């Protein structure tokens, strides 16, 4: 019985995350109204604006930092400052 409840609490049917349930999914509020883009539009990679809130280095966002976390408050569900928040076509460049 307890096991069942636990699974319900720890699995999100919306984003498949194991850190929260669907009724507490960050997607409920982290939803942007994006600007309409025409097909020819190419996003520019914002190389000079990618900085890490944790180690202050350029080139990655804090959510992907490999250094030890400085803040004592945990980042359970991920934040706005992640490569996942870049337009899809720029993510490969970010991860390479």
């Amino acid at each position, binding site marked *: 019985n307890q096991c069942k409840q636990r699974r319900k609490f720890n699995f999100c049917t919306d984003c498949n995350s194991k850190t929260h349930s669907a009724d507490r999914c960050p997607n409920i*509020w982290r939803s942007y*109204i994006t*600007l309409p883009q025409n097909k020819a539009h190419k996003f520019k990679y914002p190389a000079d*604006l990618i*900085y890490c809130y944790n*180690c*202050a280095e350029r080139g990655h*966002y804090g959510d992907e930092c490999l250094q030890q976390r*400085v803040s004592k408050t945990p980042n359970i569900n991920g934040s706005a400052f992640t*490569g996942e928040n870049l337009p899809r076509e720029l993510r490969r460049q970010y991860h390479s």
Partner: protein
Amino acid sequence: SLDFKTGNNNPRYPWIRNNDHSKQIEISDWLTMEIKDFIKYISPSAEEIQARNNTVGRLRECITGMWPDAEVHCFGSFATDLYLPGSDIDMVVVSKARNNKYDNRSSLYQLSSYIRNNKLGINVETIAKAKVPIIKFVDPATKIHIDISFERTNGIKAAELIISWIKDTPGLRELVLIVKQFLAVRRLNVVHTGGLGGFATICLVRSFLKLHPRMATRSIDPLENLGVLLIEFFELYGYNFGYDNTVVAFDEDGDPYYVSKNSNAAFQNRNPFTLAIQDPHDKNNNISRGTFNLRDIKRAFGGAFELLVNKCYDMNQATYKERLGQSVLGDIIKYKGKQRDFEDA
């Protein structure tokens, strides 16, 4: 549990009067609209703006009448149009020749007695022993508090920079006004008690906006996304920001970046958990040096994040009937404004 109230005249949130957004499907859109309503609600009326301008104009005329080789400038939130109702007006007297002629006690006392004798101000206080000597008084017509300092041009330069930032960063003004009101209610905006000052607040919001992945790639219009951006501002500075390590800095063009505290002795402190914001006009100056109460500020930002997201989760599950009269913003912003018939919760 929901704090259930019917009708949209909930006196705790006067800005939602006749502006019901509870039918918004996306809660962040609801919050965006509420932010816009709140800003409209706290913005001064045309008469109030006129009254403030008259006060400034009258003082300027009197001071330059007495000292024809002086200029009188405004700086701070009044000059940048980032003031909340009841904010002070900051003025500075500068000699036209820029020779610090008025940077002395006799000028200070001469002007304060002039203000007193000509009934230009009430409760006139002359603070001569401070690092920045000032005259403080209340304008008899508007009851606005006014501070006058002498020969300090930093504030004028900062105001010019802020005005250019507001022009080139849509959303900056809106988020700054909300964060300032949030801090003011908690008395966390007073620098001499370790709070976060206006300029530091502007620097944090601008850095957040410019470095945000969606903003950096121009994939969103910030004015359409104020709700989610406000939550993410609190998420960054309430949860994730590595204060012990990271300095908010600005390059020659005013573009923000981060730099490690190790790179500059000016940002090192016996207590590593201190806010470091590099002065855009002086690389070796930390403009948030006085913000020693970072613990409470971080905790308040983190608490605002929690309250906002929990409200979003609650509202997302609520029926339209339950949503009616609710405010998403109201859990973090209390406003006791011009309409005194509204009770402050």
